[in-house]
């Protein structure tokens, strides 16, 4: 039994450094940890990601270690995609559903070595994992507190990490993994992230966390490195078009009201569903959905004007409500006013005229506009450096 800890919020292993850097003292709770909303200036932090390097403490993300002879079979049963295609040393994005085909969560699966995986996700799901593991030979360990992690993201991120001594990092392909000795221990570096840019995630045992922070910021100084808070990351991920659990969908186990959960198809994640790989949880329901049609369509919209369509209703040409925006932001690098939106079927067809109902206040005078929305096909922000190997220096 772990000892009592009566504190409201915990610090991550980077806590001492994060506290020192968080000049704005704007914090929010994230899975029981104190997490900065912004350190100094949200705008500078966002632009660090797009122009230099932003560093984000992602330690509170839920992390499970899944290993054993049946680990791959288990994950293939759990997830909708073919996990067998994620080779050792590679990382894959995945979703998992309940029997009704409703999304429980999304996350990244790290194939550390043959039969040894780390699942990294926003929500906790140990109860579901253990239930799904019945009859299989594997172990599942919650290692959230045992692994500290920093996202190091932006055009100079590779240069900064190389300056820290991670030689040859430029050769690491997107969704690849590498290990480096560090501080008498080991760093794991993956070319992954939540910003849609060139970037890495660095994983380390808590005992080496402060040393990592110090080494990284010392090495990155000339590469204009800066810590970033949740606000900057949120903007970057909307610009990248990524969805977030609890924001763009309600994890199915948390849903109280009938019909509020979403399937992968209803979140635009069709490409993650592989019906040819054999059985997986939710397969029957998803096959039915494919045959009978979905209830919702998830879209990325470019909204006319520059006012974010936050919490906006989406209207059709006749002014009827056909959906709502789940996330929205003016995206400074893509120069688009992006809204992620959930629409009722059949709305959101190419021919549909859609409008976002946006309320704005200027000096206590509220105005309401119906801004035309255009459906975005393809990525919103996709700089070549994101995929280039070797990674460019800046």
């Amino acid at each position: 039994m772990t000892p009592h800890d009566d504190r409201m919020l915990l610090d991550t292993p980077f806590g001492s450094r994060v506290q020192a850097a968080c000049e704005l003292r704007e914090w929010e709770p994230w899975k029981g940890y104190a997490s900065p909303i912004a350190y100094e200036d949200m705008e500078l932090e966002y632009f660090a990601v797009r122009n230099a390097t932003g560093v984000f403490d992602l330690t509170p993300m839920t992390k499970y270690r899944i290993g054993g002879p049946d680990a791959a079979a288990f994950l293939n049963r759990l997830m909708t995609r073919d996990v067998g295609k994620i080779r050792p040393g590679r990382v894959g994005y995945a979703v998992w559903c309940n029997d009704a085909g409703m999304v429980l969560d999304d996350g990244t699966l790290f194939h550390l070595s043959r039969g040894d995986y780390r699942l990294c996700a926003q929500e906790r799901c140990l109860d579901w994992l253990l239930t799904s593991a019945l009859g299989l030979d594997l172990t599942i360990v919650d290692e959230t507190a045992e692994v500290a992690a920093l996202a190091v993201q932006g055009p100079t991120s590779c240069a900064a990490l190389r300056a820290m001594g991670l030689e040859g990092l430029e050769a690491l392909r997107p969704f690849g993994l590498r290990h480096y000795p560090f501080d008498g221990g080991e760093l794991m570096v993956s070319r992954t992230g939540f910003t849609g840019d060139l970037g890495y995630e660095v994983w380390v045992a808590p005992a080496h966390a402060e040393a990592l922070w110090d080494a990284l910021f010392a090495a990155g100084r000339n590469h204009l490195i800066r810590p970033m808070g949740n606000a900057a990351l949120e903007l970057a991920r909307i610009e990248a078009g990524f969805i977030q659990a609890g924001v763009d969908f309600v994890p199915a186990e948390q849903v109280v009201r009938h019909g509020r959960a979403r399937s992968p198809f209803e979140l635009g994640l069709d490409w993650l569903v592989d019906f040819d790989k054999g059985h997986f949880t939710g397969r029957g329901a998803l096959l039915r959905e494919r045959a009978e049609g979905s209830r919702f369509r998830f879209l990325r919209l470019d909204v006319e004007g520059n006012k974010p369509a936050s919490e906006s209703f989406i209207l059709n040409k006749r002014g009827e409500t056909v959906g709502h925006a789940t996330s929205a932001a003016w995206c400074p690098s893509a120069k688009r006013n992006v809204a992620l939106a959930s629409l009722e079927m059949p709305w959101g067809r190419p021919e549909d005229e859609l409008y976002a109902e946006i309320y704005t206040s200027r000096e206590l005078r509220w105005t309401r506009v119906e801004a035309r929305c255009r459906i975005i096909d393809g990525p919103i922000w996709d700089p070549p450096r994101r995929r280039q190997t070797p990674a460019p220096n800046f």
Partner: protein
Amino acid sequence: MKRMRQYDAIVIGAGHNGLCNAAYLAKAGLDVLVLERNPHIGGASVSRELYPGWTYSNCSYVCSLLRPEISRDLELAKHGLQVVPYHGGVTFTRDGDYFGNYPDAERLYREMARHSLRDANAYERFEADVTKQTRLIRQFLLATPPDPTSVKPKDLKGLIELASAFTGMGEEGLLDSVRFWTMSIGDFLDEYFESDVIKAHLSGSGVIGTALGVYSPGTAYVLLHHYMGEVDGNVGAWGFARGGMGAVANALANSLRACGGEIICDADVHRVIVERGRAAGVALADGTEYRAKLVVSNLDPKRTFLKCFDASDLPAAVVEQARNFKIRGSSGKLNIALDGLPTFNGLSPGSPLMLTDMHCTDSLERMERAYDDWKAGTWSKDPYVDMLIPTTVDPTMAPPGKHMMTVFVQYCPPTLADGPWTPEARDAFGQTVIDQLAEHSPNFKDLILDCEVRTPHELEDEVGLTEGNIFHGELTFDQLLFNRPFPGCAQYRGPLRGFYLCGSGTHPGGGVMAAPGANAAREILADLKRPDLTPPSYPND
């Protein structure tokens, strides 16, 4: 025989539902009289200074179920009611540790994980599933249950609403609901959790006030009954009425008086006067008669029909139904004046867990064994307690630095196997509870200045609750909705014209909710062809 003036309506009993009912009738312009047997109003929603300087909520002790629509509509805040929320709970374990049910979700996760990581992960699913059921029932609290045998448009509409609420939960939701409403709290919790102390902690709400064990079918619903209230829109939250639970009754009484209603205390109704098949007034034990066009009983159904009527004035079937009505006493109460704040299992006085409900039963096994004693006709030798120290939040109930402790105790039978309760047996019961608390609190016994011990005998004798049942009748499925208290009387109308029920023995049941009082007023006003003044439910969004 003294003859008094004629009233439009007489309400028997100044409990919170009687006062609420009277307030709505008075608001509608009726000339209303409330008659109370005790020298004070409130029934089981009462604050009493039984030890100088200390106020005891000596029956009900926390507030959540009180319908916010009624509280607002009757301006209870203006009339003196303030409910201060508290959150969470703690169960002390025999090994000197505890499980803290922290109000903050993440700290609760951490605390649950300390006992079982898997349980901490299952809690989200448990909470979502209970919330589904809570949402289902909440929309029917301020509504008269439809009569399933009736073809009146009103009943048909009500039945359609009931059916659509169930079907609105989806196929799985419907099946889950039927299971939930009929299963035991122990079985329900076993489906989610593995930790003994976590299950024991969460099971308490399934048996409080109920003469059933944690593995008795129907107790899962009782849990819901404790989760369906709210404080300021925070569903499931509980709070302290500032000044004790008497503040609820006092505010209702003030609201009633502001509408012109009248309350007479020390007026023990002996009999409902029946003339030409309709209720015509009441006669007190001292022979005083009060006449009225209609009579409303806030008393439980058993007491109402078996003690306040000549049996010959009632249909025999109703007398039989009242006899069969299940209203078994299961709980007792200790109200304790303390010279200071006790410490528990090493919990620091500044811990947020000191502001919560506290318990000492750390397994379902012990919960069930406590019930076994009740079945054998004795109080639990290892009882389940629901204990709070309201003075950690409310500065009005004891002198500064001193404290008041309210200890709800289960199980405690209405009569003992070897005969009725005696003062000696009552004291022995109290000592059992004190000894149990002292197991977890080294300084507790030394701090006791005064202790009021109440068994079901006192609850019946002093408050009027038959067998000491705090809910005016068991909250089992056979006595809920259109079966509460029993078919034929489930829409607040009694078996005689001009006679109504408004107590917790009617839908939606026990607790300081005021919904039965308001629902009964709605039916009475409809019968009088007067506009409905009772508030509609807030939308269930």
